[in-house]
């Protein structure tokens, strides 16, 4: 429209037939930028505008000469073809993109199946193997070996159960079925209880948490947040060398509950840091075991609380996860004689 006005004033210099070409150019540009219907509309409108304002006699829809009549018809047809062709090209491109997307999903699905089948089959194989041995060669086994097989079954079933829990949590997140059950939480107590639950799996790591007595109560989903801390600390225990230190800090910053979990391990390679929270992602060459779900579930649960998780490497080495969750607070715990 703007171009039409410009042309209206310059028609004396360029002639009304050149205006048609300029308008056609505008329609073509529109065809690249917009969808089929706005483009067809602009083709139609520009034809009318050209007729009304430019074809003599101007300011009427009357067309003076048969030549102009032909021009007008041609203009309209070319503008429409232009619109339709551009639309078709775009359709083809879209299809290609969809196809690519689909291939990507299939690839992700395959990695998923590979890592998953390994994670699920290993403990199942252990259980089946150990049970067969116990059943078939019971008399040949020393009591020590029998106990050993039983404890292998025990370890395998705990591992299997953990992966099933992970998968269930992941599907809770993905299905959108996760409904937060918000209630007042004593964050110090929550962190201590996660540490207590982790103590059987933690042999050689030193986990340090100094309770912050000034914390208010936060309204959070306790079970879900427990899982978040559990996954991150469990991850640190699994992937930092023995005797590493894991330090947990909790604070309250402008209606956010902020928890940092920092370890003295080797940290993450800078290039991998953005992938760490991706589903099924595991660092290249990381030790066997693990599904690549733990941190991704942690992030999902935090985001369900509208919170954020940030990963950095400490200057003195090791990784640092900072979790920031906006939450309603209550300072009732700091009042005396409630």
């Amino acid at each position: 429209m703007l171009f039409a006005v410009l042309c209206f004033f310059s028609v004396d210099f360029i002639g009304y037939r050149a205006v048609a070409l300029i308008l056609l150019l505008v329609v073509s540009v529109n065809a690249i930028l917009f969808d089929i219907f706005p483009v067809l509309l602009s083709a139609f409108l520009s034809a009318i505008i050209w007729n009304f304002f430019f074809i003599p006699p101007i300011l009427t829809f009357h067309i003076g000469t048969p030549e102009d009549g032909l021009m007008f018809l041609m203009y309209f047809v070319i503008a429409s073809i232009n619109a339709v062709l551009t639309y078709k090209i775009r359709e083809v491109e879209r299809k290609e993109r969809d196809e690519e997307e689909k291939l990507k999903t299939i690839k992700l699905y395959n990695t998923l199946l590979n890592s998953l089948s390994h994670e699920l089959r290993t403990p199942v194989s252990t259980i089946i193997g150990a049970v067969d041995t116990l059943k078939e060669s019971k008399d040949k086994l020393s009591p020590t070996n029998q106990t050993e097989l039983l404890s292998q079954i025990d370890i395998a079933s705990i591992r299997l159960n953990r992966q099933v829990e992970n998968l269930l949590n992941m599907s809770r997140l993905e299905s959108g079925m996760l409904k937060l059950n918000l209630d007042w939480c004593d964050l110090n107590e929550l962190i201590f209880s996660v540490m207590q639950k982790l103590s059987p799996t933690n042999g050689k790591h030193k986990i340090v948490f100094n309770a912050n007595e000034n914390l208010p109560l936060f309204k959070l989903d306790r079970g879900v947040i427990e899982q978040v801390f559990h996954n991150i600390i469990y991850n640190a225990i699994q992937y930092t060398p023995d005797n590493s230190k894991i330090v947990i800090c909790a604070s309250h910053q402008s209606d956010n509950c902020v928890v940092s979990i920092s370890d003295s391990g080797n940290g993450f390679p800078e290039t991998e840091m953005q992938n760490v929270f991706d589903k099924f992602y595991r660092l290249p060459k990381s030790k066997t075991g693990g599904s690549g779900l733990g941190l991704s579930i942690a992030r999902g649960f935090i985001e369900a609380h509208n919170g954020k998780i940030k990963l950095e490497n400490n200057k003195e080495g090791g990784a640092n996860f900072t979790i920031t969750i906006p939450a309603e607070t209550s300072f009732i715990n700091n009042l005396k004689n409630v």
Partner: protein
Amino acid sequence: MSKAEILIIDDEPQIRKLLEINLESNGYKVLQAATAKEGVIMAANHPPELILLDIGLPDKSGHEVLKELRTWFNKAIIILSVQSSETDIVIALDNGATDYLTKPFRTGELLARIRSCIRRNNTNEKNSLLTCGNLQIDLIARTAKRNNEHLKLTATEYNLLSLFAKNEGRVLTHQYLLREIWGVGYQTETQYLRVFIGTLRKKIEDNPNQPKHIVTESGVGYRFN
């Protein structure tokens, strides 16, 4: 004393078999039902000492069965449920379940719960002096001792502690605790509960950060040991 009878209502034959072997080898007599209907009939014909009730039954929800049983059955009912179903557990406890276990559970845990439930079936709650580990609570004098030393408790702290002690080994839901201690209308004021649990733990626990007496059952309530 004759063997205590336990009725298992669960549709999974494997779970029933496992429980049967386990319980029989620990001196209990086991009865089994695979459906809600069968279970209710068996319980009515021959009331057991304890019922293990699965929440996910094929013919009827375990919650319905629980409500039905509770209209006349006043002995222990332990609910078996799958993990991550806090809401289910809270509903069941509020509907009169004595306790719960989430599958998969450890045998030791199962036996401890059963023992504690059966013990409660048989105590007549007349004892005014309660002992839980290093704690002693005198219900008449309204006093409490830890390692034989007098504890200075506020009225609310004492009420909370004595309520816990009367229900030793049993999980008490947030709602129940709030209703019993603060009264009707306070059921959603869990922040009071958090505060008093915190101060009470500081007074009765050896290490308040790793509580042994008042254990948090995430999303459900507290269990006193």
